[in-house]
């Protein structure tokens, strides 16, 4: 402190102090040494010239007492260098901030005339702690929001497990395992190491080997998050790619909706600190969210598996060529989130090429799942009536009786067609039961209506129909369709029906097209006509005589030849 006397005992004008006009006389007022804040004077080289008592105390105390009072912390030395390096004469340079001992200070410099700098230290520890805590709370809230929305984004069980494992490895631990309830004797396990992808495995193991896993998987008795001894872990718990020794492990149940959705195992390496109570609480919250998400995904997949199974028989069949005749169908259900509705079609192949193939397209009153269930019954009934299929009137009479005696109050309209290839031509017998007659697209572009009509089924005590016989030359098509097409409402003016005239006009342009292109075009025109408008179920089915004949595939002509239409 040999140089202390070089520092004039002046009131230094500086931020935070009222500036007194200084006329050179010795101050009689309070000096900077009396300031309640630590104040240091450093010479241009950074050595301590002087310090007031709070500063001395601070520098001495910072190493738990006994530290050298003339060594300033490095951040202040750096700040001092940057202030003294600048040649400018600004009285106050940039302020700095840093830790001294366990406290945090902001340092404000004032340059003195001789080139030394007086540093005023302001204790900001409280504010700093509040800010840090606010920051971490914000961070946690952000993480929780992200975790929640990401966990809830998928209704796919494996995907949910992936997301849970990856998020847990990212935000809670160095590695995480999601163990789901067993399928048979194997446990689906999804693990992730921080920064890596989630990996699925199906494992067979004894859950009793991991303390707490049995309880966590059963969800009973209710157990809190549990610490496990890393030394007792079976090998499968430590994922591949986790090459450091395991330091701490906790296991927590994934509570689903009333039942356990699985267990979450978190691993931290020995170089990381163990889980704090705060982190354990977050892990429990995370497990609750993940459990709910997994549980919802499991319910959804169970329900959709049931729906898929029940609906399989209601879906329209895929059509292809049969016995030398081309069949193509297309279906659009009334609402976009359904796949089935009140329209249906089926093609029942004849036993061989000499036998007729039985085609049916129909429309049950109403739409949606309820109508679809009735289409299933009608389709089953018709399937059972296949041995009688050559007699359309008898089939329809039997179906009518079955529908009248069932508890359904709905009725249906149908078109039946019996189709057989004869040489290069295709012969059809078609019968409409209250349905729009099929349209026949001739090779030359004429569009004809099959001359059939009849009463609908399921409404009247008896059925009367008239069957038409038609012959398709190569390249010609018979189109069966439902009124969803012609009654599509929309168009450029927004409120017109598509109508039969527009359909016929469109079919004129379809002359010579393959059947699958025709049904697609008709559905496309109707869909474009509709725009975004509401619509009924729309079904189209084309029966076509192929244009080109593969020589190997020519069908022998069977049955009576001379039948005329």
């Amino acid at each position, binding site marked *: 402190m040999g140089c202390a006397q070089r520092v004039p005992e002046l009131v230094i004008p500086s931020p935070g102090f009222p500036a007194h006009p200084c006329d050179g006389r010795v101050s009689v007022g309070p000096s900077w040494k009396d300031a309640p804040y630590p104040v240091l004077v450093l010479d241009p080289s950074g050595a301590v010239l002087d310090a007031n008592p709070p500063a001395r105390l601070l520098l001495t105390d910072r190493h738990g007492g006994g530290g050298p009072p003339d060594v300033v912390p490095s951040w202040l030395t750096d700040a001092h260098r940057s202030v003294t390096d600048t040649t400018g004469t600004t009285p106050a340079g940039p302020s700095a901030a840093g830790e001294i001992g366990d406290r945090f200070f902001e340092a404000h410099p004032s340059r003195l005339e001789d080139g030394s700098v007086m540093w005023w230290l302001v204790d900001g520890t409280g504010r700093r702690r509040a800010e840090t805590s606010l920051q971490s709370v914000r961070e946690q809230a952000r993480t929780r929001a992200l975790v929640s929305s990401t966990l809830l984004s998928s*209704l*796919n069980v494996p995907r949910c497990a992936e997301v849970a494992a990856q998020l847990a490895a990212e935000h809670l631990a160095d590695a995480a395992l999601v163990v789901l309830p067993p399928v048979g004797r194997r446990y689906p396990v999804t693990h992730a190491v921080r920064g890596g992808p989630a990996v699925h495995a199906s494992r067979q193991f004894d859950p009793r080997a991991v303390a707490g896993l049995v309880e966590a998987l059963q969800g009973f008795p209710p157990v809190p998050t549990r610490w496990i001894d890393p030394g007792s872990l079976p090998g499968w718990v430590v994922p591949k790619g986790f090459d450091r020794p395991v330091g701490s492990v906790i296991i927590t149940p994934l509570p689903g909706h009333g039942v356990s959705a699985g267990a979450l195992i978190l691993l931290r390496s020995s170089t990381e600190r163990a889980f704090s109570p705060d982190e354990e609480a977050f892990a429990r919250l995370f497990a609750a969210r993940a459990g709910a998400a997994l549980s919802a995904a499991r319910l959804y997949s169970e329900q959709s598996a049931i729906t898929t199974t029940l609906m399989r028989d209601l879906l329209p069949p895929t059509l292809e060529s049969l016995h030398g005749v081309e069949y193509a169908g297309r279906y659009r259900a009334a609402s976009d*989130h359904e796949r089935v509705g009140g329209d249906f079609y089926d093609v029942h192949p004849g036993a061989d090429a000499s036998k007729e193939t039985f085609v049916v397209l129909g429309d049950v009153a109403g739409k949606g799942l309820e109508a679809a269930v009735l289409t299933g019954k009608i389709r089953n009934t018709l399937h059972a009536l296949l041995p009688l299929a050559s007699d359309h009137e008898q089939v329809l009479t039997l179906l009518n009786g079955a529908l009248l005696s069932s508890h359904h109050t709905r009725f249906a309209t149908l078109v039946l067609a019996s189709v057989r290839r004869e040489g290069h031509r295709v012969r059809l017998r078609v019968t409409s039961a209250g349905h729009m007659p099929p349209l026949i697209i001739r090779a030359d572009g004429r569009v004809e209506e099959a001359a059939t009509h009849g009463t609908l089924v399921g409404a009247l005590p008896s059925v009367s129909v008239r069957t038409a016989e038609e012959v398709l030359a190569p390249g010609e098509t018979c189109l069966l369709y439902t009124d969803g097409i012609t009654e599509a409402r929309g168009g450029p*003016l927004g409120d017109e029906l598509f109508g039969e005239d527009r359909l016929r006009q469109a079919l004129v342009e379809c002359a*010579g*097209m393959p059947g699958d292109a025709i049904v697609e075009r008709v559905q496309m025109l109707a869909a474009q006509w509709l725009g975004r408008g509401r619509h009924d179920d729309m079904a189209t089915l084309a029966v076509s005589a192929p244009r080109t004949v593969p020589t190997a595939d020519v069908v022998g002509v069977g049955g009576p030849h001379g039948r005329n239409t």
Partner: protein
Amino acid sequence: MSETRLSPAELRDRLWQAVLEGSEFDAVDVVRAGLDAGWDEEGLLLDVVAAVQTKIGLEWAADRITVAQEHAATAINERVIAALVHGPAAGRPAHPYRGRVTVTCVDGEWHAFPARLVAEVLRLRGWQVDYLGAQTPTPHLVAHQHHTNSDAVLLSGSIPTHLPAAHAAITACQAVGVPVLAGGRAFGADGRFARALGADAWAPDARGAAAVLEAGLPRPMAARQAVDDLPHLVDQEYTMVVQSRSRLVKQVLADLESRFPAMRGYSDAQRERTAEDLVHILDFLATALYMDDAEVFTEFLDWTSEVLAARGVPVHSLVAGLDIVAEQLHDFPRVLGFVREGAARLRGPASDAVVPGTTV
């Protein structure tokens, strides 16, 4: 490659002849001959079948083939693909399983051919592909993601008017944690619309799509707000044009008839064609508003005038229609800007005449 290998041009010519004649068997023979000559399936799909499909579209636009021929040719080409990829796999190198993806068209999109090609190429390269085809309602697409846990959705769009629907599909897939790779003409030659709609990636063709998938497509983690993608929608001009489309069409038709007496003699069918043209104009205008990109509109007008010219229809009726649209929508600055640009494009570069009704 070997000396005996058939050139792509030769195969394309032969396939083009076969599809034009509607001969499925000849067409399949062409690609079988290609396989025998040492071509692999991917090369045949992309360098022969796809090229012929492009030609089908161009020939239709130039009025050299009819709509029926176009459909028939496309149907034959589809069957060629089926024969090619479901044929004997002899000599086909076995790829390791790469993952599972969904290939689909945008809701309302009927041009499924490009998506089909992408699906088959990815299958050949070892991906498990769920091909949902044309006109896939977005709810089906999302439900499919819940069922299958796809690594990615490949979304194909050909017609720009489906871009708003594509936006809905992109955000829906991302919301369930599946990244979306967009492709097809609708997204722009440089993919700028795919970026604007927040797609995770864009690819110019099937090989590009395969490369993106092979490089790995990270999953979107945080839910994105679709409204942030297109801040200009706040002016509601898109919504207004879409909602008043039918009313606008009726109004423009009535105005055209009062200005052009010749139109009063139109048959119902002719009137309907005109109305349909107006619907197309308004749909593309609405899409331009949605994307805030005038080129969506002007490119459509360029294409339309080419198609009309090929069929000997004068373009001035289009210009007159645009003029009336501008009068009807004069309160909407973005609409007006796009309509002006469109009208200027139709009049040709020499003309800078003001569109009537736009001087406010």
